[in-house]
């Protein structure tokens, strides 16, 4: 079993667009997806959800406001899963709720760092 990172991206959507019922639905979708993987021992880490503010630091200490915005999509969060191959991890990613609202999931291999 190896570990793979899943990074969720979407264009920035202010929460006000969704009704409470729709938001409840979104939450349940995430819980079902994460819970399903956890139950099968496929979830290594529930990772973090990132706030929409940000700063980007570039060489020569140039700092711009806002998340990295070379493209329209920004990172919403990430998790770590266990799978026997990157393609198997990609299969898991197909169930990610961000895809139903136009987002995408980047799946990447992880290089072990060795420390306990």
């Amino acid at each position, binding site marked *: 079993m190896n570990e793979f990172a899943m990074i969720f991206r979407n264009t920035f959507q202010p929460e006000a667009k969704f009704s409470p019922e729709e938001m409840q639905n979104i939450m349940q979708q995430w819980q079902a997806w994460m819970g399903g993987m956890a139950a099968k021992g496929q979830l290594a880490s529930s990772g973090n959800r990132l706030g929409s503010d940000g700063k980007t630091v570039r060489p020569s200490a140039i700092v711009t406001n806002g998340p990295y915005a070379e493209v329209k999509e920004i990172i919403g969060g990430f998790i770590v899963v266990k799978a026997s191959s990157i393609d198997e991890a990609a299969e898991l990613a197909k169930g990610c709720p961000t895809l139903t609202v136009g987002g995408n999931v980047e799946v990447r291999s992880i290089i*072990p760092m*060795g*420390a*306990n």
Partner: protein
Amino acid sequence: MQEKELIPYLYRTEFRKITAVLCRLFGIEHITIAEDIVGDTFLLAAETWGLKGVPANPAAWLYIVAKNKTRDFLKRNTIFNEKVSPHVQYSTDESHEIEVDLSSTNINDSQLQMMFAICYPGIPPESQIGLSLRILCSFSIDEIADAFLTNKETINKRLYRAKEKLKQDKVQIEMPPASEIGKRIETVLTTLYLLFNEGYYSSSRNTVLTKDLCLEAMRLTHMLTENESTDKPEVNALLALMCFHASRFDARVDKNGELILYEDQDISLWNSELIKQGERYLNRAAKGELISRYHLEAAIAYWHTAERDSPEKWEKVLSLYNRLLMVEYSPIAALNRTYALAKVYGNEAAIIEAEKLGLDQNHLYHLLLGELYSEAERQKAIWHFTTASKLTKTSADRTVIRKKIEKLKH
């Protein structure tokens, strides 16, 4: 051996062995009864041997008497008998007597199992150490009180509460299953490391006692390496670490009992046998990919014994402290890292790093800054040393600091 030392010597080596076997026999609810039976055995030994001379095989005598006392106790307490732990062996004769197995295998197994039972996260660390000293190391209550620089009543209360909690939580005296052993060993190692540090960093003047604490910690850690299911890389790493530290016992303290700092120690007083042992265990620890904090600390200790001063050493030590801090933060590691950084990148760079540590209530922080400012800004150095002196709690430290200030003023 002189006869007046015989009982204390046997007490130290045999009390823990017999007690461990009886604890396991009776179960966690009756540790005190086990202690009492063994205590009574030794009392009988003192009285009988004083009268009739020491037997040819004193340890065997103790074992026979302890077995007899146990059988007598169980006969007198039939209700107790019925509830005794399922590990009890019954002999085949009609009297259904309880067999007390004092073979070396059972003694070893019992001690290991007691180690796991005692190093239970549900009781505070100092209670784990206290119980370990009592049950696993045969320390008397007085000796434990000395070790913790407190009094008998405090220790008695502490041990009583700990035993009650173990009873309450129904802690089992058994080897943890293979799936849990990694996690359980963590707790045991933490306790053994704390025990070692109690001795190594103790401000007690009783150097015989403090050395004893370290040696006991090493003996118990060594026991883990001798058993296949507990002979893990991190256990070997911890033992290596202890060996390296212990190798400097005789060089650390001068004839007046005052601390000698590492850089001033007489290398010829370092115990090369212990250093070799440390290297041996460090090699044994180098199995598998996971590096525990003990691996990192042992490697640092290794570099300190290998040589005093060289650019390569300090680069390695800095790297090891970086990695150690990434695994777990501690103010001491943060300060030591900064010292290593000074050796590699110079005092100015280290001062900048030091001032970001947020440790200005810590006397060691001021000691470090005093060192770092010593060459370039003497007044600042003296100010920091003086502050360190005000913040420290031990007179040994104050003496060391006073000497540093004097050195600067000349």
